[in-house]
């Protein structure tokens, strides 16, 4: 069931992300919407601190978001690969199944 489960779950994830797109909307960020609400209800509100550095453009921002996701995905892929490699080597020469416990 393992392999199929992953496929079905991924399919569900895609549906959950695509259906809202079809329903339409502006798709701004929720963080920004909260900030706008604060500003609307507190006339003259000015944040008392500003980010030390801001991505100079939307392009740079998406670059950094992609970088963040890529770093994470790389590490996960590395760990998954290593574990599969090891479960192969521990299984064969010693004739010991990974699931020998309990």
């Amino acid at each position, binding site marked *: 069931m*393992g392999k199929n*489960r*992953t496929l079905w*779950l*991924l399919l*569900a*994830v895609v549906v*959950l*992300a695509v*259906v*809202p*797109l079809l*329903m*339409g*909307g*502006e*798709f*701004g*960020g*929720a*963080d920004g*919407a*909260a*900030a706008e*609400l*604060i500003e609307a*209800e*507190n006339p003259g509100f000015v*944040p*008392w*601190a*500003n*980010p*030390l*550095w*801001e*991505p100079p453009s939307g392009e740079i*921002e998406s670059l*950094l*978001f*992609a970088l*963040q*996701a890529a*770093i*994470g*995905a*790389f*590490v*996960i892929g590395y*760990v*998954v690969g*290593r*574990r*599969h490699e090891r*479960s192969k080597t*521990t299984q064969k020469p010693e004739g010991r199944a*990974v*699931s020998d*416990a*309990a």
Partner: protein
Amino acid sequence: MHIMEGYLPASHAIGWYAVSAPFFVAGALKIRKIVAERPEARMTLAASGAFAFVLSALKIPSVTGSCSHPTGTGLGAIIFGPSVMAVLGVIVLLFQALLLAHGGLTTLGANAFSMAIVGPWVAWGIWKLGRGVGLSVAFSVFFAAMLGDLATYVTTALQLALAYPDPASGFIGAAVKFGSIFAFTQVPLAIVEGLLTVIVMDALAGKVPDDQKLRILAGEAR
């Protein structure tokens, strides 16, 4: 769930730092202990942090017509207990505050409390509860990650309501308003996070029976 830089009054900013700091220290100590005692767990620990890195970078459209992102903190909380995520979550938040102008240094304490503390603790509690009442590993993981994600966003809404109570309806009224921005948007995304956490846990553990996955991932068994 990022409260933007400078949007919390200074007293709140300091207060949330004070609340979050002990959790961060406890998490750092726990990570040191895990790494020392179970070297096998280092890989899973790295993957848990990496999962939070990936998921919090993915802004996904929601049925409310706005975008938000999952947090990815449930995975590590389920495997290692909630405390380690205080450290891993803060690393993610720092990356986003410094490089992406998402969240900020003044609001780091508050954002850490919602994403790196409340979310993981709720996820861990639901995981224990799910297993306790006899749910399968997969369902327990799903509900744990989903409700942990949702709890993070509810916490953000409450933090903002505390800082900006409605002039007429007070804290409750403000909580409803901020909640409608964060919590409703988050419902489908929380489900996505639950599903992805099950997928990644399966991939990390490999082909082993469900009930052994956790012990293998936590480095307690081979």
